[in-house]
């Protein structure tokens, strides 16, 4: 069996690349952690990978708003070799070729600010939604329950009903450019994960919904289900001892976050190899 190849793109402030790559490896993929500069220099090509991981962090310090400067880099940055062209062309081709993109936290913010999520109009790359400051006005690190929509086209959440992992962000409140965008997202089942109470019901109540996200949106996928991003960190729960109550509950050794990576790897094996 040939290998499933995952790329974890880092640099300029990402900080979850190590655990993101570990998640890919636990799920059976080969993972390379690569600096964006290597891709822009043309030394590493997106086309050589099946899964593009955009890890959490603070791209450019989130100084212009979360992942905003990072989105400018992705949108306008150029790959210098072998022939100079915009990086975004490679990224669009990567998606069009049926491959997978997985953004967590800052990586999700990046996808939304680029317009790759929710991508209601496949012909236009334009942001239709955003992630803004939490209602609390603060960065917060706390574990959240997520309810998974079984009818979402999302490849990553297939077969899951619940997920438990931490949020760690200050700008995670999901908002849409218009009510129409919200309705289209709902109709397209493009919200694979919603913040939920401990019984699994989507909620607007703090702290279960930690940021006041509209419609309890914790993550989005595009209509193909192959581009997926979420604010919470599944890669922070790869091992039993990551769970905040592992010393008092009976838990399997593998953390719940691994399932998302396994789904991605399975999809690649079935469709791209």
């Amino acid at each position: 069996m040939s290998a499933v190849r995952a790329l974890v793109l880092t640099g300029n402030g990402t900080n979850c690349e190590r655990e993101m790559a570990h998640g890919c490896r636990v799920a059976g993929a080969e993972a390379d952690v690569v600096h964006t500069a290597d891709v822009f220099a043309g030394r590493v090509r997106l086309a050589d990978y099946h899964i593009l991981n955009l890890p959490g962090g603070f791209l450019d310090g989130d100084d212009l708003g979360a992942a905003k400067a990072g989105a400018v880099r992705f949108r306008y940055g150029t790959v210098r070799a072998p022939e100079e062209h915009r990086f975004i062309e490679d990224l669009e081709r990567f998606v069009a070729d049926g491959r997978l993109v997985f953004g967590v936290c800052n990586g999700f913010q990046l996808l939304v600010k680029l317009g790759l999520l929710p991508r209601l109009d496949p012909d236009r790359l334009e942001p239709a939604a955003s992630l803004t400051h939490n209602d609390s006005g603060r960065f917060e690190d706390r574990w959240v329950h997520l309810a998974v929509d079984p009818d979402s086209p999302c490849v990553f959440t297939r077969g899951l009903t619940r997920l438990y992992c931490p949020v760690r962000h200050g700008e995670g409140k999901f908002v849409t450019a218009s009510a129409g965008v919200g309705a289209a997202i709902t109709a397209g089942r493009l919200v694979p994960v919603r913040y939920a109470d401990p019984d699994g019901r989507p909620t607007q109540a703090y702290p279960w919904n930690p940021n006041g996200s509209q419609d309890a949106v914790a993550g989005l996928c595009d209509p193909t289900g192959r581009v997926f991003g979420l604010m919470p960190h599944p890669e922070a729960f790869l091992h039993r001892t990551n769970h905040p109550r592992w010393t008092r509950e009976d838990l399997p050794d593998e953390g719940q976050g691994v399932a998302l990576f396994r789904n991605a790897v399975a999809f690649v094996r079935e469709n791209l190899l």
Partner: protein
Amino acid sequence: MAFRVEVATRPALRDARGEGAARELREFLHAGVTAVRTVDVYTVDLAVDPPERTGIAREVLSDPVTQVAAVDAPVAGAVGAAFDWAVEVGYLPGVTDNVGRTAKEAVEMFLGRSFPHDQRVYTAVQYLLEAPGLDRDGVEALVAGLLANGLIQRWRVLDRDGFDRAGGFGLEVPRVRGDAGGRVAPVSLELPDDGLAALSRDRLLALSLDEMRAIRDHYRDAAVRDRRAGLGLPADPTDVELECLAQTWSEHCKHKIFNATIHYDDGAGRVRTIRSLFQTYIVEATERVRRGLGDRDYCLSVFKDNAGVISFNDDWSLCFKVETHNSPSALDPYGGALTGIVGVNRDPMGTGLGARLIFNVDTFCFADPFYDGDLPPRLLHPRRIYEGVVRGVEHGGNKSGIPTVNGTVVFDERFLGKPLVYCGTAGLIPREVTGRPGHDKAARPGDRIVMVGGRIGKDGIHGATFSSEELHEGSPVTAVQLGDPITQKRVYDFLQVARDRGLYSSITDNGAGGLSSSVGEMAEQSGGAELDLGRAPLKYPGLDPWEILVSESQERMTVAVPPEDLGAFLSLAAELRVEATDLGRFTDSGAFHVRYGERTVGYLPLAFLHDGLPVMELHARWERPVHPEPAFPCPDDLTGDLTGLLGRLDICSKESIVRRYDHEVQGGSVIKPFVGVLDDGPSDAAVVRPVLDSHEGVVTANGICPRYSDIDTYWMAAAVVDEAVRNALCVGATLEHLAGLDNFCWCDPVAGERNPDGEYKLAQLVRANEALFDLCVAYGVPLISGKDSMKNDYMVGDVRISIPPTVLFSVIGRIDDVRRCVTMDVKRPGDRVFVLGTTRPELGGSEYWAAKGFVGNRVPEVRVEENLPLYRALERAIRDGLVASCHDCSDGGLAVALAEAAFSGGLGIEADLSLAPADGVERDDELLFSESAGRFVVTVSPDNADRFGAAMAGTAAAEVGRVTAEPVLVLKGPGGRTVVRAAVDELKRAWQAPLAGI
């Protein structure tokens, strides 16, 4: 050419920053402000064509979904903001503007072209205040009191009419307007003593008269004069040399008090002479422990590098450093703390050949944030310090991608004079880097001196000498700096790659003293250095060479790069957008040779620079203080006292702070700061698993207790070592692989006219060192690194505020298998409750007596001979899986520890404390609230109770009760009388309430 872009949140969305400002203005300053809206302002001083401006505003500087942007016009109208006053707060020229730097980079990416260094983007924040009752003076007071810090920021205020008439704020570019710079002047030291003292004071050298004389005498030496003439240098020292000496000889860098000769009068008529506290107690303790460990010694590099290094496993070593950043945090809490955390990050980065950073720790000492008394001049309100420091660490730690896993906050009114901000960072160093041990390094003659990272400005000039002084009227504003976590992250990412490619032979950080310290120290490795300050990249023109040499501008590392690797090193840096500049070379000339272009501006023999400092000679006199003995009857019911104790600031929950820190990035979190059934119980220690495919863990914990210093600093220091060790043991650490760091924060222990009780404070320092030595040797915990900050006083006019002597003791250790770790929350009804360790009537300095307004005299003593067998037995019991929960017993005593264990588990405890091991205890309140050292509260499942009892045989351990399903804490005293009965929810509420809202 410059233009303004204003960006505001769309009216339909909440402006969280504006809401926060309104809340703080009302709460902190009781201001009549109804609402605040904020606007981001970018002054873009870049050569762009007018048609490009709209694109920049819309595509780069704003989010079209959530924000509205306006070019060269106020955006307030577009978002329908109602306001009476408009305030615009920007940085003073030359102050680090992180957002501005990012904005410029983003514009460059957008346009696909670069702009020269002197073209920039400057940022400001506009506050639109709805405050109909305020006049201009009132608004100015709000700005000065909360919205801006005059040390680093400037502001403009417009009333509504003025704003409308002028069309908002006009264009103003805060460019630095400097002259050419580059001046070098000789400074004559041929002065009488009072002239030398005045020179030291006026130039902020912070050198004593003895030290000034030693420098003068060096320059009188005929051989020195001859050599200087040959180099074209004046006979007098240049300002470059004098400033370099002042930095290198500062208390901050040379620890003169810790290395002084001290004549210690123990108060009982005996006088001893101690030659260097550091050598006598700290180095000697570690050497003894290491000798005792023999071939099990796990220390790899102690005291000689930026952080201490111990072994971890076959692939990695472990290093740890804790620093303080008190003085800058007093002046600018946000910038001070931010710089503190990113600054201490550079210590492990610059240890050995450089570490990967795996966690941060933070401990703060503040005055009561609810303080409502008068504030002496120049002091900020403790609430503002609290908020600023927490936000600084939040930004510094989170943006660096390093989990903040442990720490605490301690409160005392005397921290009004200076807050203490302790920041620490641990890292992993490869055991081997391209065939060399990773914890070693050495610059070689011929290696290039390469400065990596940020540019040099006037920020942070005199930081090292400033922190070596009390806070006074003339404290320099340039000593305040602002860190930039993202520039540093890029430097860090770059250096990790350069290290693994073997592109450098030595590295250190630029902290206190800037290049003068980093190059001066590395020059000792090769035997000399030749540095050209004229090549150093500057933030703006106008710096003189001495300023370039001692500036503490942030985010800089100094690296020794072999000439054959220089090309590869510089091109890798360029590709990763990190500035790296060749500033000269390391030599074996025996001197630190400083040039500015072709001209020699300083030449300091290394022997004089590093060893020419005269040893201080000081006197210390101990006198045991006597406090009134409390006299009040023991209350019949102690429920109210317990509830009150849980709500005291030192004991109460710090969750509102800790949730703001990312404590689990990097994916290896094992024991988090908050644990238990609702994730809100206070952990004793933190454990991380830094290598994700292994079960090996790193544990860290701390101890701090300035309250006991009011009685005896010997027992204060003993208590903090004991507490840190116990905290670590609680989660499953082993004494077989645990190391300590000592951080002393003292009030000035050098007696003088303005410091009449200096000899007593020095005696307090001696005693704390004695305890540190005794405890570390007894427990077999080597000290691997530490730091001292000796001038934590405030002196303005007649007001002197001195902090209580404070030691933070931090431990770090290896855990073989994290799956054996234990948390403090009780687990199941029916589990047996044990108390380990003996309770004695030691309420001196306790929280209980403090709550009643007493200090008392009988402070807890640490009995190492009793504790050690107990600790070893507990360690084994945890490793054997016999323990369900384990919690250390310290502030507030047994009752507080039991309450915390119960409410964290969401269950009750019923316990008869008369069964607990005790000695001489006569009153119920002594039993419940005494803070005797060496104790734990442990719960054990019934299945393991017998084995646990057997494991603890021969130690002071007793079963005292059970965990109950009914969530009620019931504590009985002698005679079976119930002295506490309370629902655990209510206890938890009392514990959570004080800081929850801020």
